[in-house]
């Protein structure tokens, strides 16, 4: 099967599915955290779709760039572009909803959890992913997913943000330089 043969789900539809599953979790003392960069795009869309629930429970949000916590730093170094993590609320005793675009090995989630704990001790962390592509290497899995699919190791599934802010999924051939954890 070549890359062009795979039918990819519609990211905008998955986003609606995610929003519906997330709604009951939006209680007071909950906070949303998007992982750069796809997770942040997703969170920004969810903030709009779920605006009423978020406002009525005064839910805060922040972003994480996990570059400083990745386990492949010694091999790959720092990317030239990294953005400051911004957690403008007290993590202590919060129920954190951690948002990522594609869940693969679980290593990004591990890095994100390590970073979150450096801000404080959350009451709980719930992992949300638009797509669970299979292939996890750690005992970590998303609790809320838009869809599951099985992809091979050389297939690199990425969330892409269009100029108008809408999201779509794209398959790109894995190159030697592509990092995906």
């Amino acid at each position, binding site marked *: 099967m070549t890359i062009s043969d795979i039918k990819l789900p519609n990211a905008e539809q998955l986003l609606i599915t995610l929003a519906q599953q997330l709604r009951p979790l939006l209680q007071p003392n909950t906070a949303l955290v998007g992982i750069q960069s796809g997770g942040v795009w997703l969170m920004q869309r969810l903030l709009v779709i779920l605006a009423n629930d978020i406002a009525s429970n005064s839910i805060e949000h922040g972003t994480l760039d996990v570059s400083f*916590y990745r386990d492949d730093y010694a091999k790959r170094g720092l990317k030239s572009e990294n*953005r400051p993590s911004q957690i403008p609320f007290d993590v202590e005793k919060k129920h954190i909803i951690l948002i990522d675009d594609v869940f693969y090995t679980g290593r990004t989630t591990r890095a994100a959890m390590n970073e979150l704990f450096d801000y404080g001790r959350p009451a709980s962390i719930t992992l949300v992913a638009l797509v669970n592509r299979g292939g996890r290497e750690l005992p970590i899995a998303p609790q809320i997913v838009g869809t599951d699919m099985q992809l091979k190791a050389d297939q690199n599934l990425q969330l892409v943000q269009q100029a108008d802010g809408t999201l779509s999924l794209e398959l790109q051939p894995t190159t030697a330089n592509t990092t995906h954890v």
Partner: protein
Amino acid sequence: MNNPQLDIDGNLRHLLSIEGLPKRILNQILDTAESFVGVAEREVKKVPLLRGKTVCNLFFENSTRTRTTFEIAAKRLSADVISLNVNTSSQSKGETILDTVDNLIAMHADMFVVRHSQSGAAHFIAKHVPDHIHVVNAGDGRHSHPTQGLLDVFTIRKFKPDLHNLRVAIIGDVLHSRVARSEIHALTTLGVPEVRVIAPKTLLPAHVEKLGVHVFHDMKAGLKDVDVVMMLRLQNERMNGALLPSAQEYFKTYGLTQEKLDLAKPDAIVLHPGPMNRGVEIDSSVADGNQSVILPQVTYGIAVRMAVMAILSGGQSHFCHSSGVQV
């Protein structure tokens, strides 16, 4: 191109001087430092990047601020840090620099932060060490002090984000100042359109205008309409020679007072690399005034040094680790 600071892929391998570094690398350091600023504001002020690495601060010349900020920076990256005040150690018993370095390599040091009164000392060590070891110049003679130059432009960028629209004046003892040289290279590489130096003729190197700066001897003319005022430290020992009449005389002509600062733009900021000689190159009311960003410089210095060490230490795919320790 044979630039000892870069590896074959153009990545930073040692930080020895700003001169010779492309804009791309300077921006990478400054942008990464931006991410480290936030780390200091968290519950846990550490990231695990240099966990298990050993950083050796080799200070052959006295320094408190630079050594302390390098030490804090390395510790916030989770490295183990050893600070050697070499004046008081084996050097005074006659050991050569390279013997000191080799001994520390035998103890599995991963990075050297070097300050020395001789220009070229860090470069000399960088040429000697095996591939997997990195060297950061923390000031060598009159030559270079790259992390100071970087933290100065980082501070400027924080307060005046559009570097392409700035007029910057560097004032004081440019002749003996490695800080001035690093600042000038950093500012011009990053596209600051007008860099001025203001100093008496005796404290300017010959042909300084070849570095791309405008030379002023009259402080009032030089300060007119500048956005950034960068003061340099006047080293007391220079007073004894024939270069300057007296500290009082110098303050009268080249000391920064509020009256002179008022000639710059109303929102101009004042920088000083420290340690300050209050009443010699800068008046206390200016140093403590609301245009002064001297203490933010110190805070940002930690983030910039963290960025430098983090960029140096990561990603070594092209160098096989020659574990052969030369002792």
